[in-house]
């Protein structure tokens, strides 16, 4: 796995929207903060794009914008403004030739899971699963989760702790980190952006799904073999879960607990990776050590 160069003061971050629409106003706090951190920011045409639809621009516009950022040697990292939906519509049309010669950090989560998975699998280049531009708003730029992105980009080894959860299965694991948004991971199954999970630490999070639908997606991961040979499992937030009029009867965490009970690798729940504020920057593709004890949960980047 190739780890892209970490950023230095004066380096340039490109801000792009490969999926949903984002106004420039909503990215202002992010741009100011990146500037304070010592980076230059170049905004793509898809930020406050000329679009009246759900998307930040047409497929062609979003593709061209991201392609330009991938190809431009003057851009040292690409931060996605937001997720939403749309990255999957352009991923097969992206040309990664120049990016492979000059890898750079691709930053984002949610719909951006597509880029993490696609790049990790096909080009063996690590990416950064982390908060996006919107997370800087409402004084978000002060919190430790947004700061964790800064630290990750500066090349500090990421090391996180979280509270124990009653469902946790203690143990130690070591392996490359893979994962992201559950709905996207399920959707990528069977495609050429699907990441093998054998020997890896898998992390999952999701938002706003019906409980039955979450259960079905988990069954898809299980039935496609993704839980079989994990080194460890990190369960993040499953926020704003919805239920049907006939209650499903299980929380997302209970669905996961039931589906992995036959394995013996360590599993932790409630890790701060989510669509809520709690969302640490994780280097997808990099090696991590997971330690789960009764009183301690630690996810630490290995050398």
């Amino acid at each position: 796995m190739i780890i892209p160069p970490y950023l230095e003061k004066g380096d340039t971050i490109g801000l792009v929207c490969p999926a949903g629409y984002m106004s420039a106003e909503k990215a202002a706090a992010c741009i100011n903060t990146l500037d304070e951190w010592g980076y230059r920011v170049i905004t793509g045409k898809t930020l406050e794009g000329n679009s009246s639809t759900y998307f930040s621009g047409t497929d062609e516009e979003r593709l061209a914008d991201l392609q330009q950022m991938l190809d431009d040697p003057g851009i040292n990292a690409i931060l996605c403004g937001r997720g939403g939906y749309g990255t999957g519509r352009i991923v097969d049309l992206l040309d990664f030739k120049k990016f492979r010669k000059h890898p750079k950090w691709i930053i984002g989560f949610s719909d951006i899971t597509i880029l993490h998975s696609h790049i990790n699998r096909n080009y063996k280049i690590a990416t950064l699963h982390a908060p996006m531009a919107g997370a800087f708003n409402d004084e978000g730029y002060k919190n430790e989760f947004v700061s964790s992105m800064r630290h990750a980009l500066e090349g500090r080894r990421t090391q996180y702790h979280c509270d124990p959860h009653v469902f946790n299965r203690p143990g130690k694991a070591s392996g490359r980190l893979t994962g992201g948004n559950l709905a996207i991971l399920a959707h990528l199954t069977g495609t050429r952006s699907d990441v093998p999970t054998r020997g890896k630490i898998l992390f999952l999070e999701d938002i706003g799904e019906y409980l039955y639908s979450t259960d079905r997606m988990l069954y898809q991961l299980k039935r496609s073999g993704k839980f079989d040979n994990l080194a460890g499992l990190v369960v993040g937030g499953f926020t704003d879960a919805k239920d049907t009029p006939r209650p499903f009867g299980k929380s997302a965490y209970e669905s996961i607990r039931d589906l992995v009970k036959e394995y013996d690798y360590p599993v932790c729940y409630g890790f701060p990776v989510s669509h809520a504020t709690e969302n640490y920057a994780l280097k997808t593709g990099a090696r991590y050590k997971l330690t789960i004890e009764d009183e301690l949960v630690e996810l630490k980047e290995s050398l």
Partner: protein
Amino acid sequence: MNRKQFLSSTPALLAAITLPVKGIAATEREVSAIVPPYLKSGDIIGITSPAGYITREELMPSIQLMESWGYVIRVGSTIGKRDFTFGGTDDERKQDLQQMMDDEDVKAIMCARGGYGAVRIVDGINWEKFTLKPKWIIGFSDITVLHSHISRNMGIASIHSKMCNSFPDDWSRAEPIQVDTILSIKKALSGEKMRYETAAVINNRNGMAKGRLVGGNLKTLESLAGSESDIRTNGKILFVEDTGEYLYSIDRMFWNLKRSGKLSQLEGLIVGGFKVKADTGGEDFGKTVYEIVMDKIKEYQYPVCFDFPVGHQKNNFALKCSIEHTLKVSDDICILKEL
């Protein structure tokens, strides 16, 4: 023989049945379906609920009508059971379905309703007796799990149709479209060759196709991708339908079909009902279902038929999965015909 051994021997079994004389391995396209025996008067239809829960009372219209067709109805132990949204616990649902599959007296199994839950039990089913003595499995929506699993692993035909919860309460007052839909199940079970005509719509792509029919609920098909139940579509006519999904989600599902290689080698595509969930304010997706579909398949030439009467709507005609059909799409009409 345990289940694992059995499953691994299934392809060999199929190959043995269909291997051409010269010993060249048959491609999937050449393999024809194993057709369960059609039903005769007095045959038993079992009703079970592998997914959502249903009361016995809700079954009554379907029982009465199917009895009037001359069949004997056996009600499974999951009917009236409830475990939250499910028709009993996973074990209870699995056992009921297993019992019906294994019981030689039961000639067809109608799933009482869909919902969610078939995928939670499908890997626990032992298919040994069913494979030796195939019988009709009937249902749609969540039951797409069973159609897809059976089609892929056993090549046994099954019936994609309405289920017990959609039989009209009062048959004498049912709308003609309901009557036709429900009667199509009877026709399918009794061995009539199916033939459906539907008016052409402007978005169709004309042409002729011939191939085995596979498909079902799109969300369910997507959720099976990468699994042992993942549908194989090469050389086939694929039908899809869905309900209550946002346009962006429908778009994403078609991307999954495309990116997992399911659209490139089709003979034909049938798009049934797609009841779309309205976009939330200010977030218009900006594309119709027609555009979403055609965008994915513009580089292929096979015929495409939209608004076919299959889906979560009143006109949802019985389709025989895995059996060879022809599809003719022309300026004024679409005809799907069982061979």
